[in-house]
């Protein structure tokens, strides 16, 4: 690949455009020829069904064999997964009992003793205290407000079920991630194994591995938690590897010079020095776990996710919004708390007092609060369970709002929808569907060769081929079409906003807050208002995808323009560039690689969201995965999931190769 790139580079310097222009023209002509004379080679236009490799059945058979007959010697594979489930059940039950359901202790036949769960007052007070410790009085108020919302709007019971699974899943994910990260950091061979798996796991849609998890762990909260951990751990692994690598050489050398053993070096030098980046990983795990709440409820997690999903299915918009907002509120609270701890200076005690109370003041206060409020709760019912008559619900208000919009603006909304469908969506979809598969595979390979040489060409080409060979070509094309249009729209909206925010300080601050909030929202939440206004179909899916994937387009554009060395901007000014010239001739060209990386992120997020929009009735790969989930068809789900991942990987590799090259040309890499 290097040799080829170099050769291309040299050639490219002499006569850059013509050669590739000719090649691409030829490729397009060949494609057109294939289409026009499709009677000659019909197999090259539509992939023949007889050639389909029955991969999905092989996968299903393998899963069946794994569960029914795979024997690890001392125990079977099934026993193995069941014992993991049993292990996870314990902490989950405990957290659930503490926060949500209370404990029922029974001795013999009659004697039964019920310990109630923590009261809302106790939990809220402790959380406020944690908020205060993490980020001072402002964060304490924010977090307190968030939890009071849950209380007042009657979301408490469900929120505590959700929270109890989060507080167990997150530590497990973090510890697992750190250990895998250490492994990858210490051994190059392990790293070479781990990185591609991470790449795959972060691009395969979640739905795809819900099915095998369902198979191995059964339906219920434990399975949901396993899926959550699988989904939320990869970024922790990445952060751990990255942060350990980033520890300055000098610090590691210092450790060696004072005679640290390997273990001391890791735990006393490297891990503590890597702490800031590790904390970013923890934050990621929390956010992804919350993002998973709704999806996990498909395989048995209760709580807020279940509420959202069931109201979405019954089109009870108001209830859905309330539960959705509750998830968001929970996410904001946990996100800010973890960020607060991440940004806080290290928490080593400067002088260690001897008494427990002085040494752990926060723990002591928290224990005190729990005891006092619990006692108070046994005497005053309202302090334990928030009285129902004081609760507020906005459900009917939302329902009224939707009906009002639909009554008054139905025609306008419908007109926009129809126009876009007829003039943009459907033509693009038709066009992509008639493209000969062979030509598309060829062109994907060609793009790979142009940007990264033979190895990339082989990689992208064979991933594209996989979609045809496994019989998912048509659905893949629908995914590409929905994703492509959404990405273009997101870019058209996001890039100008990013440019504006990069050039205006006040706008920048507002945009930052909005983008931060958008990224805290779980993906499902975007579906609710869209379904309210546009009902189901491709158009609704597109709107939801655009809304979800907008943030990185804005963020990367903003960042790309801001990171341009000031000397370049000054040089532009010195030559007398107008503001417009500055933008088009200096800032945008230099920021382009960064903006393209943002677009890359947009594509990744769009694909992730696309699968979820299967719920509003698309007919792409996402639907395929979703159907597989409802039918518990492992093979079908995994193969379609792989197709989604491969679309993501193809675009990721191509764009990264391009951006890398451009950055090198600019000397920014």
């Amino acid at each position, binding site marked *: 690949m290097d040799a080829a790139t170099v050769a291309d580079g040299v050639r490219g310097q002499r006569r850059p455009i013509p050669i590739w222009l000719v090649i691409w023209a030829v490729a397009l002509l060949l494609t057109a020829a294939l289409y026009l004379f499709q009677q000659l080679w019909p197999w090259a236009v539509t992939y023949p069904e007889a050639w389909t490799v029955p991969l999905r059945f092989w996968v299903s058979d393998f899963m069946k064999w794994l569960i029914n007959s795979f024997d690890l010697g001392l125990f079977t594979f099934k026993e193995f997964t069941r014992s993991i489930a049993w292990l996870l059940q314990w902490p989950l039950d405990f957290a659930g009992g503490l926060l949500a359901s209370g404990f029922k202790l029974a001795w013999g036949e009659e004697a039964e003793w019920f310990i109630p769960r923590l009261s809302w007052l106790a939990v809220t007070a402790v959380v406020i205290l944690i908020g205060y410790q993490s980020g001072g009085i402002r964060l304490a108020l924010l977090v307190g407000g968030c939890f009071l919302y849950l209380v007042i709007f009657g979301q408490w019971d469900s929120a505590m079920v959700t929270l109890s699974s989060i507080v167990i899943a997150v530590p497990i994910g973090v510890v697992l991630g750190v250990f895998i990260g250490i492994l990858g950091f210490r051994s190059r061979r392990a790293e070479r194994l781990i990185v591609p798996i991470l790449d795959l796991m972060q691009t395969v849609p979640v739905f795809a591995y819900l099915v095998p998890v369902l198979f191995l762990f059964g339906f219920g909260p434990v399975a949901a938690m396993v899926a959550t951990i699988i989904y939320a751990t990869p970024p922790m692994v990445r952060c751990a590897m990255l942060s350990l690598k980033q520890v300055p050489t000098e610090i590691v050398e*210092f450790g060696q010079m004072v005679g640290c053993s390997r273990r001391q070096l890791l735990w006393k*030098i490297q891990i503590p020095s890597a702490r800031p980046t590790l904390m970013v990983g923890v934050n990621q795990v929390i956010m992804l776990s919350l993002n998973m709440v709704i999806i996990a409820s498909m395989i048995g997690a209760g709580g807020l996710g279940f509420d959202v999903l069931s109201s979405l299915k019954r089109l009870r918009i108001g209830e859905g919004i309330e539960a959705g907002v509750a998830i968001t509120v929970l996410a904001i609270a946990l996100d800010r708390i973890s960020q607060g701890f991440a940004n806080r*200076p290290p928490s*080593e005690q400067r002088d260690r007092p001897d008494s427990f109370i002085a040494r752990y003041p926060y723990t002591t206060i928290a224990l005190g609060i729990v005891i006092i409020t619990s006692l108070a709760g046994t005497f005053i019912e309202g302090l334990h369970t928030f009285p129902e008559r004081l609760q507020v619900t906005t459900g009917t208000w939302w329902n009224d709002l939707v009906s009002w919009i639909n009554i008054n603006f139905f025609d306008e909304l419908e007109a926009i929808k129809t126009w876009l469908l007829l003039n943009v969506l459907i033509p693009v979809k038709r066009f992509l569907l008639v493209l000969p598969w062979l030509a598309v595979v060829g062109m994907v390979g060609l793009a790979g060769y142009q940007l990264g040489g033979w190895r990339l060409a082989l990689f992208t080409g064979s991933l594209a081929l996989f979609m045809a060979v496994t019989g998912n070509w048509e659905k893949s094309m629908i995914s590409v079409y929905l994703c492509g249009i959404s990405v273009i729209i997101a870019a058209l909206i996001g890039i100008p906003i990013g440019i504006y925010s990069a050039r205006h300080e006040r706008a920048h601050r507002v945009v930052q807050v909005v983008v931060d909030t958008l990224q805290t929202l779980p993906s499902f939440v975007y579906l609710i208002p869209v379904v309210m206004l546009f009902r189901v179909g491709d158009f609704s899916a597109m709107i939801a995808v655009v809304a979800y994937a907008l943030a990185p387009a804005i963020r990367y554009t903003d960042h790309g323009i801001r990171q341009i060395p000031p000397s370049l901007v000054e040089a532009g000014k010195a030559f007398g560039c107008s503001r417009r010239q500055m933008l088009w001739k200096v800032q945008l060209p230099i920021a382009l690689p960064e903006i393209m990386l943002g677009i890359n992120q947009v594509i990744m997020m769009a694909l992730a969201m696309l699968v979820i929009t299967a719920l509003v009735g698309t007919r792409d790969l996402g639907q395929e995965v979703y159907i597989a989930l409802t039918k518990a068809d492992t093979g079908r789900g995994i193969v379609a999931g792989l197709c989604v991942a491969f679309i993501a990987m193809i675009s990721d590799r191509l764009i990264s190769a391009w951006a890398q090259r451009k950055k090198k040309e600019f000397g920014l890499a």
Partner: protein
Amino acid sequence: MESPERSVKISCHDLWKLFGDNAKEYLTEHNGSVSAQSLKEAGLIGAVCDANFEVFEGEIFIIMGLSGSGKSTLVRCMSRLIEPTAGKVMFENQDLLKASEHELIDIRRHKMGMVFQHFALLPHLTVLHNVAFPLEIQGVDRASREQRAREIIELVGLEGRENYYPRELSGGQQQRVGIARSLAVEPDIWFLDEPFSALDPLIRREMQDEFLRLQNLLHKSIVFITHDFDEAIRLADRIAIMQDGHIIQIGSPEQLVLEPATDYVAEFTREIPRAKIFSAGAIMAPPTGNTLGKVSASTKIEDLAETVVNSKSDVAVVDSDGRTVGQLSRRAVLDVLVGKSTA
């Protein structure tokens, strides 16, 4: 300054470090006689080529070279932070390169100290715990290691800052912590890798004085890396000059100025004011006439100029035992000051 009967603390013998594939085989094949050309053809980079020198007990030995000259690699080979390709590093009659992992850890814990260019302080520990850290690794109990750390913090003038975190300190203060930390275990050999290069010029000068003050108290055997020739001259007993992995000359500051081995060395010494280099002993005349007052033979001209120039007659030069060994005229000192003398 140097006296041959002083004992050797650490020494390098035919020490090589080549970066690249099959460096070891290459070196055995060529049996130590390697040209820059043949290295290049083998695709190897010679970071340290055939280094031979010894560092005496209580001496400040400075390795001077520009960036890329291999000086940092050399000091890392001496402590085995980097595994040398070939050669020997003798430390207290033991070849460090043959030491087992376990022995090496033991030597580093008790006998070596190192100061780093960018301080390498642990960000999550306070000054006190940073300084106590090497003792913690040794397994010293909390009370005694904190006691010892407090003593050293006081020695480097940071008392009152024990509970600060590194980020709350200035660069100069951070390096004081680095120095204190490296001294906590009372090392026998003290490595300093460009300790003052990351500091502002004014602070650098202050730290150099501080370093000399500490050395007057402690008399450590020191290997000091720098790219700053002025710094080398100020601090060194002896200087080794490195270029492209080779040590091209070793000598006292005076020797380097008087007899530069190559044009490269001469280039460094050209701009250095002679008054900073020469001591009274180097330019004195035999003791013949009347003298008024006396100066020590090892005093630099820079420091005695005012006394001699203002004196009405020649000044006597005495050795460390107080015996008169020569005398110094105004004329001789003025010649050095205006740059006429080549001594």
